């Protein structure tokens, strides 16, 4: 997956082309507003992520556009027909339309939930900010990677560090480079890898935890043994040795490695929680109905634990971010700049915190990570509203 793509003119064209689809459908169905919005959404996401952003957005936008006008004439609950008269055979096209409309409705419900909770919306805006920063920021702020040795050296200074100024809002780093440009250009790889690692961690933990608790017996014992083993082996020596053996070209495998080392804690919590939940009426009922493990996990157990799992995922993401900072310096991934992780490590080893004019190099990426985490945490408020209907209704 090419997650390194940046906003580009090609993307703009792709976005515009993609946007035509919802626009035309919108015009034909006489829902001009949503059609136009769909066009803009496709334009934006195509612009940001090329085909990867444009195509999925077509589906989403079309779904929303359709959902405005779609009425399900065959809905047995809305029609007065008796059961015999209802036509359950529908054409493929009709089915797609119906599915799309359903999807569109959920998107609308989700979006409404998103906007409704103020704190959650703030978190959403924060995430959007980071998205814009890393996708569109590079178009506005060029990367400043050349060391500007003489022209940026201040009188009497023995480093090229400089504190924030009007010209360089976040100051200059140890090589006299603009920190702001490094913040803008250096976040994407770290964020993407960390989010991958966090999500992978949670997925592994939830699946294994649920299997351990619901299946029990040998798989349970085996998984506990593995979890204990991973928890107990000293990670630093392990990583040092691994770094000598392997180096990653693809950061996805780095994320995978982090996930493999990180899942046991959450897995144990999930396992314990599922052990409690499995006594619940609805889980017992699901068992009795023989609905199968995936169903029980996805439909019965997960919603119950969703907010706990989401917050754990966020913490895994944060953990992964700082772990990557360390791993870059164990040589597991090529040392590429600009990168927040490189900034954090260099900032620390250059003693940036001790000098007022240098602190920005270390604190800028750290605060960026902290604010990113804050946005995620706030955003969970909205997610809770979407996923936990009980909360929607209040206590």
């Amino acid at each position, binding site marked *: 997956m090419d997650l390194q793509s940046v906003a580009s003119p090609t993307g703009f064209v792709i976005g515009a082309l993609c946007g035509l689809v919802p626009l035309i459908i919108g015009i034909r169905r006489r829902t001009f507003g949503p059609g136009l919005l769909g066009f803009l959404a496709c334009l934006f996401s195509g612009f940001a992520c090329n085909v990867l952003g444009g195509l999925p957005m077509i589906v989403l936008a079309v779904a929303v556009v359709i959902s405005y006008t779609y009425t399900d004439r065959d809905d047995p609950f809305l029609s007065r027909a008796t059961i015999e008269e209802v036509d359950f055979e529908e054409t493929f096209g009709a089915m797609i339309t119906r599915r799309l409309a359903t999807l569109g409705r959920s998107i609308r419900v989700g979006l409404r939930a998103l906007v409704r909770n103020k704190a959650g919306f703030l978190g959403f805006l924060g995430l959007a900010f980071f998205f814009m920063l890393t996708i569109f920021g590079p178009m506005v702020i060029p990367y400043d990677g050349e060391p500007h040795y003489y022209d940026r050296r201040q009188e009497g200074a023995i480093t090229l560090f400089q504190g924030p100024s009007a010209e360089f809002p976040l100051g200059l780093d140890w090589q006299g480079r603009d920190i702001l440009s490094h913040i803008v250009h250096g976040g994407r790889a770290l964020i993407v890898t960390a989010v991958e690692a966090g999500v992978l961690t949670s997925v592994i933990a939830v699946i294994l935890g649920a299997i351990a608790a619901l299946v029990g017996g040998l798989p349970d014992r085996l998984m506990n043994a593995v979890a204990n083993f991973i928890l107990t082996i000293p990670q630093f020596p392990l990583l040092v040795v691994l770094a000598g053996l392997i180096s990653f070209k693809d950061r996805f495998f780095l994320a995978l490695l982090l996930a493999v080392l990180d899942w046991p804690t959450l897995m144990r919590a999930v396992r314990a929680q599922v052990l409690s939940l499995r006594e619940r*009426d609805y889980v017992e009922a699901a068992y009795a109905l023989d609905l199968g493990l995936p169903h029980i996990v996805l439909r019965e157990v997960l919603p119950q634990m969703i907010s706990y799992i989401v917050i754990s995922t966020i913490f895994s993401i944060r953990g992964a971010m700082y772990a990557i900072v360390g791993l870059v310096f164990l040589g597991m991934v090529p040392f590429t700049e600009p990168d927040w992780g490189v900034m954090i490590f260099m900032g620390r080893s250059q003693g940036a915190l001790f000098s007022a004019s240098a602190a920005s190099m270390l604190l800028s990426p750290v605060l960026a990570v902290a604010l990113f985490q804050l946005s995620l945490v706030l955003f969970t408020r909205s997610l809770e509203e979407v996923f936990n209907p009980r909360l929607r209704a*209040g206590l």
Partner: protein
Amino acid sequence: MDTLPKDVVLSVQDISISYLAHRGRTQAVNRVSFDLRKGETLALIGESGCGKSTLSLGIIRLLPKTGQIDQGKILYASRGGEVINLLDLNNRQLRDFRWAECAMVFQAALNSLNPVIRVRDMVYDTARAHGRTDREATRKRMLELFRRVRLDPDRVFNAYPHELSGGMRQRVLLAMGVLLDPQVVILDEPTTAVDILTQRTILEVLKELRESMGFSIVFISHDLSIAAEMADTVATMYAGEIVEIGPVNEVFYRARHAYTFGLLEAVPTLSSGAQDLISIPGSPPDLIEPPTGCKFHPRCPLATPRCAREVPPLVEEAPGHKVACFESAQVLAQSQRLAESQHSPAGL
């Protein structure tokens, strides 16, 4: 000062309850009134989402934060004969009122027991919250009540909820409900999640308890056969409103509201096969933007243009039998036909 007829213990007067939802206010209960007399069992029947549970939560003032009682009064006659409006109570008084005066047994038996503490701790908690600090006395009373609901008292008393079967839990809840000798017990679907034999046991012990202790019951159910067996009075709720209320035989044999009749038609009996069952088509209405006129009219097979226009008032058409339906005469005719075809409409 409000007054109540002498034998009325609980009087709900013109109560409306709404929830603050995303799209606006959901009118969950709309101008509901009824009286509950001493020793009487009132069955509230209706589909899920019709406001039965909200109403009962409203009575003990346990609505979620987003829910509020917009108008009306809930009057309660204490044993001393004092009449209080529950809506005037402060938190402290409310806590005293709950359970000691009016207990509520919730729908999902396991889920209303704290899974991590023993039954006895819940019992002690309850007793202590109402100033009964004599643990030994509490224990004795509880054991006695357990015996009465046909539970092995010592075992159950010291058990954790998950160690009990569904039926046992339900009976534990029943027994706990009457621990403080309340005047009113609200039972929210007490027999949903249990098998048919357990259901019988529960109903039997409930009857026994009612006889020996003399409390009044508000019985919430969508199971008409059980309602018929237990209730003195039946109220049908639809879309937050009571559309028909009357003595049990009157309502079941001479239903006058199309919705009640629809519910009766949907009851399986031994004599009728499943293929004869007729369900009420459609689903309960949107309570934020309810239909005009009679809220049932979009689903009603007898609906006339008038039904869509005007709201039918609740009028007493037979002694103690009130109904809100313009076509009650037609319904009555149909239901009598039905009663004839099935010797016992609610019979099991």
